[in-house]
């Protein structure tokens, strides 16, 4: 038997260089998106500053666009860190908004009861997505591509069957609407800009998601599950539960957007939320989240959504034909992925 080795613990390791907070920031996944936001803001401020981009009113418009995507992007970013996709969120927005509106307008439910029903419905839908992904073992990209069309088709079919139309309005005459409007669709006026309350929802949810991700067991599991599901399972992480929970949270986030939009527009359209799934993924990827999972942040998705909002509204302020928006967006995704790859390699390499 060998003698116990005494280990001398040095007070501080001489190999440790003091890492400045700035250097630490360089290793964060959201760095690219923060720098990108500044660049995009500077660009539109110089190009479209005089036409109102930098005014409070201009800021309020792009923040609202960013918020209504950002709420979704936060949930999608957690799901992506866990290594999964949800392409069906666009259809869930359409389905939940329509469900809530039909229940209130056609069947006379109190709006809060209808909202509750829509939330329960989205939990079930999210569970269905997650369960299907886990049980079939198919890539979630394929599974939710399927459910994207199924949910949309069912929404259109059922809505037409019940109401004979594809748009249903009149939500503002339903019991409880005023409180719902105050909570989901009101404005706060600051310096002449009407800031949508959805911005507040967005920021609060971002803070909550960041806390969950970085400061809870569940957050640690999200990273683990996305980084290596088998390794995580071996150390006792309930992989299926983590993934299904995140699918459910993503569906709830989609429903929250559906509620905000239904209340704001006082009705629903079966096509609402179309293409949101792609925009959400774009915001999340621009935000520095790794497509293959295991790396990223909710804060990144906030800046990704912010860039999306600034570009979408900035183009209008700059009086460029809005047709060019998609070109901007697509190019930005490509640049973001290249930057992300570089940042990730830095993180892996010994600093």
């Amino acid at each position, binding site marked *: *038997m*060998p*003698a*116990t*080795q005494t*280990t001398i*613990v*040095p007070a501080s*390791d001489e*190999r*440790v260089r003091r*890492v400045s907070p700035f250097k630490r920031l360089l290793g964060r996944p959201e760095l690219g998106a923060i720098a990108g936001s500044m660049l995009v803001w500077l660009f539109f401020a110089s190009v479209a500053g005089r036409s109102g981009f930098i005014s409070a009113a201009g800021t309020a418009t792009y923040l609202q666009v960013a918020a209504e995507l950002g709420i979704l992007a936060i949930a999608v970013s957690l799901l992506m860190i866990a290594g999964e996709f949800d392409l069906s969120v666009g259809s869930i927005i359409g389905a939940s908004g329509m469900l809530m509106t039909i229940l209130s307008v056609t069947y006379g439910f109190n709006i809060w009861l209808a909202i509750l029903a829509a939330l329960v419905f989205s939990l079930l839908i999210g569970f269905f997505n997650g369960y299907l992904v886990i049980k079939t073992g198919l890539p979630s990209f394929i599974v939710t591509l399927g459910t994207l069309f199924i949910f949309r088709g069912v929404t259109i079919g059922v809505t037409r069957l019940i109401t004979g139309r594809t748009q249903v309005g009149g939500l503002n005459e339903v019991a409880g609407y005023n409180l719902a409007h105050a909570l989901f669709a009101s404005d706060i006026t600051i310096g002449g800009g009407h800031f949508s309350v959805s911005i507040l929802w967005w920021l609060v949810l971002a803070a909550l998601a960041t*806390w969950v991700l*970085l*400061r*809870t*067991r569940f*957050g*640690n*599991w999200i*990273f*683990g599950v996305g*980084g*290596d599901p*088998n*390794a*995580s399972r*071996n*150390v*006792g*992480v309930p992989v299926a539960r983590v993934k299904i929970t995140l699918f459910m949270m993503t569906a709830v986030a989609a429903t929250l957007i559906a509620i905000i939009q239904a209340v704001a527009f006082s009705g629903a359209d079966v096509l609402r939320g179309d293409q949101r799934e792609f925009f959400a993924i774009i915001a999340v990827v621009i935000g520095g989240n*790794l497509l293959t999972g*295991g*790396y990223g942040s909710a804060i990144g998705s906030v800046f990704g959504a912010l860039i999306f909002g600034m570009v979408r509204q900035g183009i209008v302020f700059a009086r460029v034909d809005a047709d060019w928006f998609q070109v901007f967006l697509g190019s930005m995704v490509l640049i973001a992925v290249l930057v992300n790859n570089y940042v*990730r390699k830095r*993180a*892996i*390499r*010994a*600093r």
Partner: protein
Amino acid sequence: MNNNQTPLIEVQNISKYFGNVIALEDISLKVSAGEVMCLLGDNGAGKSTLIKVLSGVHQHDTGHMLVEGKEVHFTSPRDALEHGIATVYQDLAMIPLMSVSRNFFLGSEPTTGWGPFRRFDVELADRVTRQELSKMGIEIRDTAQAVGTLSGGERQSVAIARAIYFGAKVLILDEPTSALGVKEASVVLRYIAQARARGIGVIFITHNVHHAYPIGDYFTILNRGRSYGTFAKADVTREEVVAMMAGGEELQELSHELEEFARSDKALAGKLAEMGHELENATQPAATIQARTE
């Protein structure tokens, strides 16, 4: 040496079949506290199957398994872990993009606070990770650095430290040194010695005798699903272990073949020398003709 104490884990006459394939036949093995048992064998000897039985991935078909004298039947790796049997696999179960301390506590995160405010105690995780690693003699530069930035040996060491911290009484190490350079392998061997000194029973699986012999107290040699038996270090030399690992007779056969090669090489060399002579002589046509007729 430790015959009077109850072994931490013991298997008696264990067999494992996959359909009509006999993966393990009549294997017996025991490890007591503070012992390193080296499980040696060539590829396909059944080492992997045996550790999978020990770690609860597979269930044995016949024979008995005892943990601290009590018969057990593991139903899952989790089950084995709860009995204090921890396995560090070759692929390590570490997530490269996650930090050292997050990896260390993955699946068993310490929490603080209550109710909805219950949170992952990051400070405690960092402190414990640093402490546990320094107990093993590893000074980590920064517990927030990604595991992907560590060397192979450091990763092994973190995995070993983690298993010990979470109450492993028996540590099963699956080829921990096989992918490492000489220096790194010796670092890992030192951690195995540390673990032994802390009273942990170690099962060290390897096919490298040069790694096993210096550290092992006992050697169990597997060949084609069967055991050649267990030998205490005092009773066996390094060369004998090598011979048994390769399958004694086969090795004899091999050395016989090699001698044969050497003989035929000699014959060939002789022939070549002869041909050289002939070529020299070839300048004289008459001699060449003579040589040919010969």
